[in-house]
């Protein structure tokens, strides 16, 4: 598995898309920091971008790589290696190379700016951690979609649709539902709903740092309990982890029973 990981990682690290992705984050980081000169504002803007963008990039890269390497995967399948090793290795290769682009791309500008001297270092690492989590989650989901759909066009469509749903539509439906049923106690619903969407979950995880003042303004006891303590952060991280483990597990299971 390590071998497969090694080769798909080195393949991706040399692809021009990795560079474009890396350069995009470099530029973004430099522009935000040096034009704004305000770390906390830069981090808020980045947060808005990252919770939407890393899932999108993860989805597109994941599904593209899956379909593009289909013949090569077949060649690997004819080798004496188990399927789970092949797919897990390739998955880790994509997710790691994308996460690395993110961490380096944003890390370098912030390092040059002197993030370690700043009080925002925790918020910044939070940002990178959730970006990496989202990458791992969405690559897993899109590879899973690829495994279930041999038709490239269909698979690509589903993957984009999944991103759109989780990034935008889900929140819209949730908002409308909450406004419609506002006479009922909603905090359980709101909290549970956010667990079922990794984008919402990482958004909230960052909110816990950046907007704790506003979140504590809300009266619900459950919110208070969740947001007011470290439990919120720990729970969020744990559920994000589940969001990786479950799709990867499904991916490996499907890969074992699939015909290529």
């Amino acid at each position: 598995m390590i071998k497969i990981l090694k080769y798909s990682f080195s393949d991706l690290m040399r692809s021009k898309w990795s560079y474009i992705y890396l350069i995009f984050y470099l530029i973004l980081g430099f522009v935000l920091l040096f034009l704004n000169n305000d770390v906390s504002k830069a981090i808020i803007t980045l947060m808005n971008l990252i919770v939407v963008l890393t899932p999108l990039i993860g989805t597109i890269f994941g599904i593209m790589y899956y379909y593009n390497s289909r013949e090569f995967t077949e060649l690997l399948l004819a080798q004496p290696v188990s399927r789970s090793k092949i797919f897990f290795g390739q998955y880790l290769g994509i997710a790691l190379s994308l996460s690395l682009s993110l961490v380096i791309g944003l890390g370098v500008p912030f390092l040059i700016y002197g993030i370690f001297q700043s009080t925002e270092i925790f918020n910044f690492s939070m940002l990178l951690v959730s970006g990496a989590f989202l990458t791992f989650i969405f690559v897993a989901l899109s590879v899973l979609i690829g495994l279930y759909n041999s038709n490239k066009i269909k698979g690509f469509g589903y993957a984009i649709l999944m991103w759109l749903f989780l990034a935008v539509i889900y929140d819209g439906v949730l908002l409308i539902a909450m406004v419609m049923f506002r006479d009922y106690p909603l905090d359980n619903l709101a909290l549970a709903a956010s667990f079922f969407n990794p984008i919402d979950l990482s958004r909230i995880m960052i909110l816990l740092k950046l907007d704790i003042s506003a979140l504590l303004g809300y009266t619900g006891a459950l919110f208070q309990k969740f947001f007011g303590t470290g439990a919120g952060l720990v729970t969020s991280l744990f559920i994000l982890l589940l969001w990786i483990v479950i799709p990867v597990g499904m991916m490996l299971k499907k890969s074992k029973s699939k015909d290529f």
Partner: protein
Amino acid sequence: MIAVKNLRKSFGKLTVLEDLTLDLNQGGIYAILGPNGSGKTTFLKVLLGMVLPDKGTIHIDQADISKSNDYRKNLGYLPQIARFPDNITVSELIDMIIDIRQVPAKPEPLVDLFGLNPFLDKKLGNLSGGTRQKVNIVLTFMFDTSVLILDEPTAGLDPVSLIKLKELIADARKQGKIILITSHIMNLVEELADQIIFLLEGEIYFQGSLTELKEKTKEKDLEHAIASLLKS
């Protein structure tokens, strides 16, 4: 050395292989023929472990292929389309496959044979289709495997390389290996094949030597023999 018993595979409602039983005990070149959709590719993929059968067993060199994937160490596979990761070089790819297989390999003579030396440090994404097919051939023949599966091996090859490929196949046969070939090019089959396995609707419709086939169909060449097989 290859024992297939009651093999059955269907995709949804479509049955592709129906109760296929086959024993290949001797080395030699076996051409697997059949019209489109007859189950050739599926059969090869089942052998390779890429498609999982619904029923039946396959033993290669006495090993049940559903139990372990170690048998693939003894299996060379030349896929129809040569697609590799774009950003690694030819020599990296060769090293990688050797690395994954963990068996001794002799790529150098093959690289020389196909004149691939200038391309060793080139990225695969920058190579032409023909060159990639040559790389593909190197990957298949560099191991000493007792079974070779060649899926449309001549696609995209220039005549010179084609001759070299045929030599390689002939060599392998001399070493007593089992070579399974699918091809649409009947000349090639006629030239190489010791045995013809003709699949139709998921079953073996005919198995025997070229001469037996011609005698049975009373035709002079393979193309017509097959056409008449299909008519009857």
